[in-house]
């Protein structure tokens, strides 16, 4: 009888521990739960300012007349960088920029 009670207690303890672990996971993940009313875009582009930094650097590097270089598309490139595709009067270019705002490369396309 004592053995049965002991087994039941052990099982309950294990279940409780298991639940607490699950609850712990939930608590942890709840920190990442968006707040009500949070919004996002359905697609992932480079942050606006990084796109413009690429455009400015490209205008400077490629000596674009008038300096008007327009980002036309962008996408993640690796874990912490973005590829920004650019157009300007007379050409196109591809710029890679990291999240800190450092331009890694500019290639005429």
């Amino acid at each position, binding site marked *: 009888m004592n053995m049965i009670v002991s087994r039941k207690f052990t099982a309950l303890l294990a279940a409780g521990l298991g639940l607490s672990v699950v609850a712990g996971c939930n608590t942890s993940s709840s920190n990442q739960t968006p707040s*009500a*009313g*949070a919004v996002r875009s*359905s697609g992932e*582009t480079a942050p606006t300012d990084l796109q413009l930094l690429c455009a400015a650097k490209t205008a400077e590097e490629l000596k674009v007349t008038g300096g008007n270089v*327009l980002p*036309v598309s962008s996408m993640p490139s690796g874990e912490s960088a973005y590829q920004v595709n650019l157009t300007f*009067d007379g050409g196109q270019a591809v710029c890679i920029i990291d999240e800190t705002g450092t331009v890694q490369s500019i290639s005429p396309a």
Partner: protein
Amino acid sequence: MIKLPSAFRTLLGWLPALAVLVFAGMALAQSFQTQIYDPTTRKWVDYTPRAAAKFYNRHGQSPEEFRRQVVPFRTAEKPGTIIIDGDRHFLYLVQPNFQAIRYGIGVGRDGFGWAGIVKIGRMQEWPTWTPPPEMIARDPESAKWANGMPGGPDNPLGARAMYLYVGNKDSIYRIHGTNQPWTIGLNISSGCIRLNNEDVSDLYSRVEVGAKVIVLMQGAALYKGV
């Protein structure tokens, strides 16, 4: 030499611009949509006009992300420049010290998005709205305003309008207010950029004719200027 009627010559002059507009309408390869987090289902759902109206009716304003706020902004553009990110539904007004004022916006619906580098050519308080002929064709109700709807709270252009020019030519696009404030965050216009009336008045008070306006929209065809 054949002498063409002046109206026809005017139309010919606008053909390149019209071609660009048609191209812009056809070339929106990838339309980004706003999504909103639904805490009930714990899922991101599309921020449709219906969802937007429901949110606005419940909260009396748009989601917090779309409310006016100062944000860090690393850019080489000079203060006073306007940068519009149509994909994320934000308009940035560049400020000194790598900051910007960010406003929520509504942009062109599928087929009406565009990108380019333009400038503010004219500004107007409580502007008159004149529906273009193609809008009247789509919506006969608008015909009564064919000669212009006076400015006021029911006017679709809202409290202020900033007319976007390419060189000295009106692009037909504007940054303006709205009589439908719940539409901020949506792809809903005919290509104009709309803010709620309070925000457009704030922006209007901070910008000048001649300000550079950079419009980003992934997949949209380019307007002129680049």
